[in-house]
């Protein structure tokens, strides 16, 4: 057995905590998770059944931790987990799982399958079976501080452009600001207008905010590839900056897993509570709306629908804020049939959009979202995750379906009540 395989299997053993062992023991093999997974519904291939994606981990548990399994193993009636098996499972654990959490939601016995996939990725990464795209992203996250290779100079260039476009300052490293605002790599590079949108909204709502030169990026690839140490380091970067600047709150951007990582897993990862509050940008905007500090003076009047980012809504619990905000700024909001916590994933979350070999499968899995969007009749889709947005834009281009994507924060900024309109 190779050293890396042994290392991976050791990680599997470590990950077989009480939760995971309990989940395996209580699985009633009903198969409901299959119908909850867009990779199964769009391909109808049984191997994409979520619980099946965990088969090597489950076998290891059965062979080493159950009485019958141990006897069977001792008698040579079951085979050990091999490197070849893990290689075969790489596609199932990475390419065909966006960690969207829909399987965990529908499991009738409450098994958190998504959690187990994360644990299995830990072992797969240690054994060397993580896909090259994700390994590269993680290497860049370690070496450059960003999975996309975004540097401070990249952000500074975007800040210059957005300050020019809005005529507003974009504060950096301002001590004593109320909120430290984080961005995702994808926002910095692909939708820098988000920065301008934030500047305009915060200016109008009187919010004191800042960016931090040593923690501007929220993306946490440690979570997706399954390297807890890295995930911890990335969270710690933000915690250190937030405490140095003395902010009251840290704002997670329009990014899905950044919110999961920081809001829900961060304190566990670093082993202590935060000294500040963590909010998703939509939560902050909804709070400002509730306080009467965020107002629009025009509305978006074409049919529009909202794509729920899995990590923000189903996994993160930010369900009502996007709807409150959308109703404020748009007059013809059309919900998809299964929305909110029951939404379907864009197909590219959980690191899948970074896996080159998964492209064809990802485009196929988009069939679910495509059907949902088309059924609403809306030609505009608002969302609150820059990665969902790019994944959907690419698929929409590919299928030539003529739908526009827009970030909800930007949409609000575009209809914001201005000084002139307020007084005029």
């Amino acid at each position, binding site marked *: 057995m190779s050293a890396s395989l042994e290392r991976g299997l050791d990680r599997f053993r470590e990950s077989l905590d009480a939760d995971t062992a309990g989940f395996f023991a209580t699985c009633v093999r009903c198969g409901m998770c299959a119908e909850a997974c867009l990779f199964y519904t769009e391909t109808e291939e049984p191997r994409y059944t979520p619980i099946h994606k965990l088969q090597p981990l489950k076998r290891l548990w059965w062979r080493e931790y159950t009485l019958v399994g141990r006897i069977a193993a001792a008698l040579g009636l079951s085979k050990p987990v091999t490197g070849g098996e893990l290689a075969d499972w790489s596609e199932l654990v990475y390419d065909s799982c966006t960690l969207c959490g829909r399987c965990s939601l529908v499991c009738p016995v409450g098994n958190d399958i998504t959690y187990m996939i994360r644990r299995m990725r830990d072992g797969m990464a240690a054994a060397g079976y993580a896909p090259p795209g994700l390994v590269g992203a993680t290497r860049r996250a370690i070496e450059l501080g960003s999975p*996309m290779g*975004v540097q401070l100079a*990249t952000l500074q*260039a975007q800040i210059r452009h957005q300050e020019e476009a809005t005529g507003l300052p974009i504060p950096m490293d301002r001590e004593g600001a109320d909120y430290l605002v984080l961005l995702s790599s994808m926002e910095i*590079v692909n939708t820098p207008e988000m920065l301008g949108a934030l500047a305009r909204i915060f200016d109008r709502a009187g919010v004191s905010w800042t960016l931090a030169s040593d923690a501007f990026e929220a993306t946490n690839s440690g979570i997706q590839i399954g390297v807890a140490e890295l995930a911890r380091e990335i969270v710690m970067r933000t915690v250190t900056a937030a405490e140095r600047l003395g902010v009251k709150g840290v704002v997670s951007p329009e990014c899905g897993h950044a919110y999961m990582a920081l809001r829900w897993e961060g304190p566990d990862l670093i082993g202590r509570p935060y000294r500040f509050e963590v909010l998703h940008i939509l939560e902050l905007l909804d709070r400002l709306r509730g306080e009467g500090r965020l107002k629009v003076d025009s509305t978006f009047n074409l049919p529009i629908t909202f794509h729920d980012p899995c990590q923000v809504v189903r996994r993160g619990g930010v369900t009502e804020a996007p709807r409150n905000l959308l109703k404020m700024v748009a007059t013809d909001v059309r919900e998809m049939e299964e929305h909110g916590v029951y939404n379907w994933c864009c197909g590219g979350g959980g690191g899948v959009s970074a896996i080159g070999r998964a492209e064809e499968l990802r485009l196929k899995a988009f069939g679910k979202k495509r059907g949902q969007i088309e059924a609403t009749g809306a030609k505009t889709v608002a969302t609150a995750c820059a990665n969902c947005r790019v994944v959907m834009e690419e698929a929409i281009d590919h299928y030539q379906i003529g739908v526009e994507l827009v970030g909800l924060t930007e949409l609000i900024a575009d209809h914001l009540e201005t000084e002139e309109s307020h007084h005029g």
Partner: protein
Amino acid sequence: MASIEVNGKQLEVDEEGYLQNLEDWNMDVANFLAEQEGVEMTDNHWEVVNFLREYYEEYKIAPMIRILTKAIGKKLGADKGNTKYLYELYPGGPAKQACKIAGLPKPTGCV
């Protein structure tokens, strides 16, 4: 470390053939890399390569396809800022192939 030889000089490239050092790049290197990719450089090809060099100079990042089309659209107009036009120039993937010829690292997406 792999390398290529241009004008008698050894230049380091990564496992996928992307130049390791930005400053090793010049037009001869670009022509060499283009030939390896099976791309015949025309003025339109150079326009994209030069755009990428300038983009990298400012933003320090190699843009993935979506960002490239958007940024080119802004600067050179919609008839050039679209995937169809760029794929005609660089059939092996406009961002990847053109970045390689421009001496930039391989563009990457988010996770």
